[in-house]
């Protein structure tokens, strides 16, 4: 039996024939569409390495059935840069050494983009840490990750202030 679904992934519509209802969104991205940026760390919703944005919200793609997300708009790490121009969060992670081995980084960056969009943390490092607690980093790059998120938040806040001035 096959299940046809249609998703928008990084701005491109993709029609997919699922041969099995058990396929997670993560496995669809990695194994069927060869978008291997989202990582399979724990595959149980505990590490955050598989974080992607679905309809603008960060979720664990390992705990999402692809078939249930028929019609969804998915953004993965492959879709955030504009050509050679990095997304501001990507650039900030490099500037602040927000990574070491890099395995958790796509999930961290997608989670940070989601966090900034949610607008709950502001410039409070404690709120940033709390809002990033769903992303584990075994190298322990948390200090740089927090600094990177704060820098982007501050840049955005300054830009918003300039716009409204």
């Amino acid at each position, binding site marked *: 039996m096959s299940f046809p679904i249609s998703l928008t992934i990084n701005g491109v519509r993709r029609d997919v024939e699922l041969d*099995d*209802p058990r396929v997670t969104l993560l496995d669809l991205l990695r194994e069927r569409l060869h978008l291997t940026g989202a990582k399979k760390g724990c595959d149980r919703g505990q590490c955050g390495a598989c974080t992607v944005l679905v309809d603008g919200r960060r979720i664990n793609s390992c705990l999402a*059935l692809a078939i249930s997300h028929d019609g969804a708009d998915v953004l993965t790490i492959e879709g955030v840069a504009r050509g050679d121009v990095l997304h501001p969060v990507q650039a900030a992670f490099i500037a602040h050494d927000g990574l070491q081995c890099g395995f958790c980084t796509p999930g961290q960056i997608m989670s940070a983009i*989601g966090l900034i969009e*949610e607008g709950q943390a502001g410039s409070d490092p*404690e709120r940033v*840490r*709390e809002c990033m607690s*769903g992303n584990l980093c075994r190298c322990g790059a948390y200090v740089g990750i927090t600094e990177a998120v704060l820098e982007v938040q501050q840049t955005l806040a300054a830009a918003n202030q300039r716009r409204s001035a």
Partner: protein
Amino acid sequence: MKTFDYVRPATVSDAVAAAAQPGAAYLAGGTNLLDLMKGGIARPDRLVDVTHLTGLDRIEHLADGALRIGALVRNADLAHDANFAKSYPAVAEALLSGASAQLRNAATVGGNLLQRTRCSYFYDAASACNRRAPGTGCDARGGENRLHAVLGWSEACIATHASDFCVPLVALDAVVEIEGKAGRRDIALEALHRLPGDAPHRESELEPGDLIVALRLPPEARAFAAHARYLKIRERTSYAFAIVSAAAALRIEHGTIQEARLALGGVAAKPWRARSAEATLAGASPTPAAFRRAAEVALADAKPSGDNRFKIELAQRILVRTLMLAAAGTPARIPALPASPFASVSGALQNV
């Protein structure tokens, strides 16, 4: 994961009919169910996907002053709804103290109520577990059980209910709206979950096909907004289940407690309402001595189910602390570390 038939009903009544079949399970956010299915703990033959049903994702203010929350409202959306957080601050704080931002974005109100215990023996298919496989025994009784129940447990099962959200909800007399084969009915949240007794596999009062469609907070629930807190002791600062937790909501007039609502989490197989402790506070002054007495009453029937005697005193202490903070007044904004009993210390050294 065992394979399953996938059904996507267009209406609530189609969903109920599809899920009334033996072996069927509802799929909403999937954050608990898919984890259980990957571990072979949940093995549904049919998944009834309710995420595409319309009309179940609304937060409605009813004419009588009650609030009606659709079962498909996501945990994050409810917690971040400014009106909701203002009227029911302890509920919003509890929601934000649970899981991670990603999980709160996916998990639904209805699913949160029906999440399964996190007892590690329940999650280990090789262990005996009366809750997962009736009649096989309980390996938690003689195993690692420092996090297990101290109230309402039985020889058959010592698991706890894991929800933070349910704890302030049960204190505020939340009501669950259920659509079933016989139509619509209400059940108090306090009566939804069952204590284990000799049938721990019967976890709730729901019948096959029953679908939670909404949660209602009665008009009186908002009267506690000025003095309401939820606190949670966990083994790391964030993204962990409660060892014990407490919700306290007070109505204070002229320095006297008119009415108190108290509930505990992490202590039993259901969110634990502490009514006898509430009664000790009616008409009392909000003093540490009164709060300590209430906490003793709340845990009077508690007994360890294993290496967890410490949880009884811990629950008393967290209840006293929650009452102290509730009496001091609800903070204008939910703290940076929601439900944390520890002072927040900012700075890079915190993570070193």
